[in-house]
């Protein structure tokens, strides 16, 4: 049995194999793998008795369920209005500069993926970004370099 099969098996056992447990199972995979591979989705389909296309269709509906490979740290910069007004583009440039990747890309060492996302709910402390499940607000260029520096050392 492969690692993924084991992971999916464990998640299905934990949450149950009914359809209403699909999101928790997929979220469990994301938490571990940061994205959903075709292999993982087929495994979910098999173990939960859902068609693979249906699993894929459901997953792709949700922005946090990536089906492309992602780095260990997924950075999501808020692009919605207030963050946009408060300089999101500069933050993005700083991130691109610091990580040496463009928006949408993953660093060659598979550590970071740089993405944009819709409103994070920190408009009063814009601009904001998420790194995996951690939130960073009132970003400045200096702050960004500092944060990324810390993550690089993790």
């Amino acid at each position, binding site marked *: 049995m492969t690692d993924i099969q084991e992971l999916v098996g464990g998640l299905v056992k934990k949450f149950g194999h*009914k*359809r*209403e*447990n*699909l*999101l*928790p199972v*997929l*979220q469990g995979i*994301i938490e571990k793998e940061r994205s959903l591979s075709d292999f993982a989705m087929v495994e979910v389909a098999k173990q939960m008795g859902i068609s693979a296309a249906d699993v894929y*269709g*459901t997953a792709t*509906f*949700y*922005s*946090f*369920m990536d089906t492309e490979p992602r780095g260990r740290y997924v950075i999501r910069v808020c*692009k*919605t*209005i*207030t963050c*946009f*007004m408060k300089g999101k583009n500069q933050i993005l440039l700083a991130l691109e500069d610091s990580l040496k990747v463009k928006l949408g890309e993953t660093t060659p060492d598979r550590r970071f993926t740089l993405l944009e*996302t*819709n*409103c*994070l*709910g*920190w*408009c*009063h*402390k*814009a601009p904001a970004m*998420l790194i995996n*499940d*951690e*939130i960073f607000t009132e970003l400045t260029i200096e702050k960004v370099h500092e944060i990324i520096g810390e993550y690089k050392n993790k």
Partner: protein
Amino acid sequence: MGKNMLKRIDLIFKNEHDCDIILEKIFKRTNEELINDLIGSGLKGRGGAGFPTGLKWKLTSEAKGEAKYVICNADEGEPGTFKDREILTQVPHKVLTGMAACGRIIGAKKGFIYLRAEYNYLKPSLQKEIDTFHETLKKLKSDFRIEIFSGSGAYICGEESALMESMEGHRGEPRNKPPFPTDAGYLGQPTVVNNVETLAHCWTIFKHGPKKFRDLGVQDSRGSKLFSISGDTPTPGIYELELGMSLQDFVDDFGDGDSKAVQVGGAAGFCVPRKKFRETAIGYQGKLTGISLPTGGSMMIFNSSRSMYNVLKNYLEFFEEESCGQCTPCRVGCQQLLRGIEAVKRGDKPHYYLTKLLRLTETMKMTAKCGLGQSVANSFSSIVENFREEMIY
């Protein structure tokens, strides 16, 4: 600016922690009394749609089902709103208490908090709070239990039927209505879906009585409301204010002295230009002077340095991505509106093309499948009508 025209209310975040006492009080009273209190308070849904909460609970309590559910909608995705996050951070026990009260009234044993993925970091503390709350419930011999259900990044799941589709493991596509959740909601069973803030207000009503709540606000818009204030303001943040306030007073309090427009109700809400601040009140129907706008609490202020074209474009890009995509008017309509303003700006379409698009927004409002689909064009029509020249030049 900062004139403090509006009275600051301190109910939601008031430092009160006596869950056990309030719950005991609630459990001792009859359903009828409790529902009457809610109806009497005039509390309406704080997510933005404004359905009377007491009536929703009453309908669900009367509906027949094998099981019933209470869902707390914490999928706070509307751009410009962030109050629910703060409630769940500071006073989660008030929300849990509201859910337990609802569970008792409608006959539900299970409650869910649908927490948006963007707030995943709240999970550990919230879970701890739930565990403590369960201990309290056990002491009171209540078998009501609450679970967190995580979203995965989809704005539309804030629409209650989409939220339930999502909880059932599907794409978050809104359902046809009827049936309404009060009759057939989660897993086809009668379900109450309430916004985080709505449930937190129940605490106030059950603790201090409906009058305390009802005395705030005006006419059909009773009570206080949390406002998420952002944009061009020296004092962004969350404020509890009375419903019914005039937008002019609001801008005087929170604007930077140069406010040219306020977007009320988020990207799906309405843009009010400076000249209409005075005649606009914030609340549900029940007119003061001019128009009255409901809101989930999102108030975004723009000063004269902002291009309303850029604002609108940002909103439309948001909807183009976040529409669930199932119904034609919302899926294709949003794309046409976005491409339309871009084409006009570039000069590829004549300026009167905006009029055609305004007509399209009428169709979108009338024919989209869900409440959100019906409101995606609000920002377009209110911005284009009021800032037409900014769209063209």
